[in-house]
């Protein structure tokens, strides 16, 4: 009976993961397939990667996405680090309420947040620009970053800071030598998560980007609507490999930020 249960569980997990990975595999195979209409049997060819290399629109959009993700993830992680420290170390009225407010932004559909942001900027008389685009990204990133870093801080023994103080260490030195090194895995995890949140984000970019600035998800969406080309398979394959590598490296380091010290 126990044996059966264990085998069932194993089959279940394989099926669930298969459901996710098989379509990705099909996409990746087609990136190397000569056929324009994704037809099998596969004829190996790098033609779509060659075309991609000449597709300035896609390349520019990819560079945009990478730059936006890099800039906003750093900004959001810095803001979130201070916010998480305040939430973990200070007691103040309404703290529980503020912490509860961190969760809904992660479940509210981004398209709704995007529309709300657009509306707000419109009301304030701010037209769409690089700044609105970056602010939009940071807005959706911050709750993720705060939660990841908070989880790490919660797993860190606070008596370590008391111990440092008892050993004659002033607060600034304690922060530098004890608190910061111990929270660093959480900060790195937040960087990776927020980078992914920004890089994947379609609605915020679609609504808040100024005319003439496009990101990779927006470009892929547009490409599919106007006529699918396997170049999208090629770029998606590259993106998948980079994302998966990030997730594996990050995941080992952090386990959602709660690995014990």
């Amino acid at each position, binding site marked *: 009976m126990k044996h059966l249960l264990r085998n069932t569980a194993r089959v279940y997990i394989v099926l669930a993961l298969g459901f996710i990975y098989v379509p990705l595999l099909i996409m990746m195979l087609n990136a190397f397939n000569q056929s324009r209409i994704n037809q099998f049997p596969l004829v190996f060819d790098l033609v779509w990667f060659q075309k991609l290399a000449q597709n300035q629109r896609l390349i520019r959009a990819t560079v945009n996405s990478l730059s936006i993700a890099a800039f906003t993830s750093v900004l959001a992680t810095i803001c979130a680090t201070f916010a998480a420290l305040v939430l973990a170390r200070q007691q103040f009225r309404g703290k529980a309420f503020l912490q509860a407010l961190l969760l809904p932004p992660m479940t509210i559909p981004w398209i709704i947040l995007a529309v709300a942001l657009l509306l707000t900027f419109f009301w304030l008389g701010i037209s769409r620009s690089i700044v609105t685009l970056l602010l939009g990204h940071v807005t959706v990133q911050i709750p993720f970053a705060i939660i990841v870093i908070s989880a790490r801080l919660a797993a860190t*023994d606070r*008596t*370590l800071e*008391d*111990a*440092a*103080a*008892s*050993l*004659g*260490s*002033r*607060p600034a*030195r304690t922060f530098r*030598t*004890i608190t910061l*090194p*111990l929270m660093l895995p959480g900060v790195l995890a937040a960087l990776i998560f927020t980078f992914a949140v920004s890089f994947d984000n379609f609605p915020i970019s679609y609504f808040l980007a100024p005319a003439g600035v496009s990101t990779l998800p927006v470009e892929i969406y547009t490409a599919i609507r106007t006529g699918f080309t396997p170049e999208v398979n090629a770029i998606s394959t590259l993106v998948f490999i980079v994302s998966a590598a990030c997730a594996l490296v990050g995941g080992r380091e952090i386990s959602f930020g709660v690995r014990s*010290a």
Partner: protein
Amino acid sequence: MSKVTIEGMSYHYGALAAVDDIALTIKDGEFFALLGPSGSGKTTLLRLIAGFLTPECGRLIIGDKEMQHVPVYARDIGFVFQNYALFPHLTVEQNIAFGLESRGMPRSEARKRVADVLALVQLIGLERRRPAQLSGGQQQRVALARAIVTEPRVLLLDEPLGALDRKLRAEMQIELRQLQKRLGTTTIFVTHDQEEAMTLADRMAVLRAGKIAQIDAPMHAYEYPQSRFVADFLGVANTFTGTVSALENGCVVLTTAAGDPISACSDQSFTIGQALAIMVRPERVILQKGSDARERVNTLNGYVSYISRTGASLLIHVTVEGYPPLTIFEQNGQRDGELHEGENVALTWLPEHARVLPAESET
């Protein structure tokens, strides 16, 4: 000189007084225990001395400096935490050097001091290990080494041996005691274990509900408790309550509810008819087989209800009609022939081995 003086200190958690107007003086070089059941305020008091908590009122003087408003890092203390609180990302050597670096000690001198203290706590060879790679006993030594390497004016220990197993704990008690005598550092330690307090401390304060029940040398407190709470907390106490029926030659005779005369010596004065309690320790009671028909003072007849054998000693539980169960302590092999459960026995003790206590019962 690092005498520690506490005057009129209080601290509340909400409405609960964890430390309630405590006054206490710990002498220079003394090994002092704060002993009490959980919730008695002993850890809160230690944290107030360390500066992790700020008292609502009262003064704390270490040496000749008033300290209650001085931040923790400037108090020059050593603190050993119950869970050790070793820095997990630093090696043993770095953990121990941390306090020296805080004080800006030159690296070469710090290295020498670390090496000396490692030898003192027998940790040579483990310098490069991380805390997670050490056993519980080794972690305890690192925590101790880290706290003493800076030669603090006061060493504070919060249940320092609480996480160790029984045997290791007994070994570490001896080591800790010897180390403290060698360093001569004023040391205050918190424990809920009365045996540990007795083994280690020169003097101790027994705490109850945020107040000091008694300050005394451990054996003196054991022999001469001032309340039933202290008598019970420091060991097994056979207690009888009654009213004073006679006073003679510095001894008090109580008549219990069951009508027996129970006597104890005391240099305090009492009046006939006063309600009191008399306490006798289990090792002071003499147990004989059979029953004793003579109606003498301090003689009770009963039967053995249970014998608890722990190897070197026996705890014999005796039921006497009209009293709570009594406990008698005997060395193993002390008597000829076995004692059996259910057997009739007579109990007696000398009045000078019993103590007079206030009648108030436990709350």
